[in-house]
């Protein structure tokens, strides 16, 4: 990069609003909810100032926000919105419709716990609950990644081989409201990168009328359509990689399905996603200095889940500790754990795998908690135990 980089001291929400300004979507239907609110607050300034051509729709609920997003997208518009927590929960039935209709809507979900009790702080329960809704899910560690993922999400969603909605995820408050160093791209670079939006069908194309969202009966084709969604989700993986490579060319920042740190010779590997991966990296550095062979795998793409690639990356580890920032009552461990187990089992990999639930409702996770995990792993290793377990970090128990 020869040109001087444009760097700002802004929060992830402000960075994402700036990305939206650069993307200049046709329609943005939105409803405010903490901690997403400041994205739309900031973006509505751009709308009011005439900095974008967006039609901002202030709807009466998140259900309406997603409904309007679906309608606008089916009409041929480039559509974005954003939400959090209960807002995402209220969108639930519409999330499935957006993905099944193959509408390339891009939405930030600022991760926040689900009630009850009412809690505005970070965990991943909201988007993990939506993991089967057919949306691509990109997790971000910090404001830079949230900004970069928002721009890449548009290109991934709109790729003709994909045409699926994309959720960009980042941690409520910890990332959304923290002032961070963010390198911004030039408007022209973003515009060229995402290109023009080309709808496949449009409800407004009166010369080529189509029916969107028809009824499908018992002897119909529902099963085929669902299988196709799964197929497209699989295909999306290579598109996500390709878009990441193209983004590298314009930004100098590299994005793949996940990021590994010090795993080449690691006996122990931590697997997690979101902002805690940053703290985990510092923990790894600390532990490496003490001679402990530990590494980190930070997931970026949770849907489609990169099974094969993860299995390969973790295969030579002795013990894998998966950290989940959400809870799945009645299951064996959290959602990330389940996926990683499934990956390791499917590809006949050998590591012992254990699970830690952490950070629910914004519960703090500090270096000491990672050190605790690693001392557990050393214990296991000494005992040569093959037993899996689910434990809780920083819980009063």
């Amino acid at each position, binding site marked *: 990069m020869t040109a001087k980089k444009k760097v700002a001291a802004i929060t992830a929400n402000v960075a994402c609003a700036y990305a939206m300004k650069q993307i200049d979507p046709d329609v943005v239907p939105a409803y405010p909810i903490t901690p997403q609110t400041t994205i739309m607050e900031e973006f509505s300034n751009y709308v009011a100032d005439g900095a974008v051509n967006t039609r901002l729709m202030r709807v009466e609920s998140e259900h309406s926000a997603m409904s309007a997003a679906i309608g606008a997208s089916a009409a041929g518009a480039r559509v974005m919105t954003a939400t959090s927590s209960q807002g995402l929960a209220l969108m639930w039935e519409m999330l499935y419709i957006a993905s*099944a*209709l*193959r*509408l390339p809507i891009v939405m930030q979900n600022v991760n926040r716990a689900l009630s009850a009790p009412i809690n505005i702080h970070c965990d991943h329960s909201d988007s993990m609950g939506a993991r089967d809704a057919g949306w691509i899910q990109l997790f971000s560690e910090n404001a830079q990644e949230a900004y970069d993922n928002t721009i890449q999400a548009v290109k991934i969603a709109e790729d003709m081989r994909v*045409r699926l909605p994309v959720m960009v995820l980042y941690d409520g408050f910890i990332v959304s409201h923290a002032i961070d160093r963010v390198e911004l791209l030039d408007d022209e670079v973003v515009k060229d990168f995402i290109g023009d939006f080309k709808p*496949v*069908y449009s409800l407004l194309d009166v010369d*080529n*009328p*189509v*029916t*969107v*969202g*028809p009824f*499908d009966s018992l002897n119909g*084709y529902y*099963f*085929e*359509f669902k*299988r*196709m969604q799964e*197929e497209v989700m699989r295909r999306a993986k290579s598109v996500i990689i390709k878009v990441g490579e193209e983004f590298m060319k314009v930004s100098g920042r590299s994005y793949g399905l996940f990021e590994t740190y010090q795993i080449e010779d690691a006996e122990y590997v931590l697997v997690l996603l979101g902002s805690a991966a940053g703290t985990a990296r510092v923990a790894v550095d600390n532990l490496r200095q003490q001679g402990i062979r530990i590494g980190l795998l930070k997931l970026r793409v949770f849907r489609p889940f990169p099974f094969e690639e993860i299995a390969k990356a973790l295969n030579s580890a002795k013990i894998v500790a998966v950290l989940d920032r959400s809870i799945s009552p009645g299951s064996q461990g959290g959602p990330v754990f389940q996926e990683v187990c499934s990956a390791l089992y499917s590809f006949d990999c050998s590591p012992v795998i254990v699970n830690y639930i952490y950070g629910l409702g914004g519960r703090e996770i500090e270096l000491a908690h990672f050190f605790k995990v690693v001392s557990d792993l050393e214990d296991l290793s000494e005992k040569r135990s093959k037993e899996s377990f689910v434990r809780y970090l920083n819980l009063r128990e």
Partner: protein
Amino acid sequence: MKWDVRRIREWKFYEHPQGATILEAGNSLYYQTGSWRTFRPVWIGEKCTHCLYCFIFCPDAAVKVSKEKIAGFDYEHCKGCGICATECPREAIEMVEEQRESDR
């Protein structure tokens, strides 16, 4: 026909249009709902004033009209719902039970 659905039953999952979209308007023409009928509407020409109420009310566009006059029913699509007979101000449409094969 822009979109030939005659062999849709044999389509593989990846052959369907994206997102279950129906690409052509009016293809319900190929769906012959006439077989659903248990009563059929019968037009009594001498009572009819050609007010076209039946044409307006028919949910399946199964009332045929020619030169602003009733020209009978499209029995390939008429489901036999009887709305035409109910709405007719002159009782010029009678619902007659379809004959079963065994009654013939």
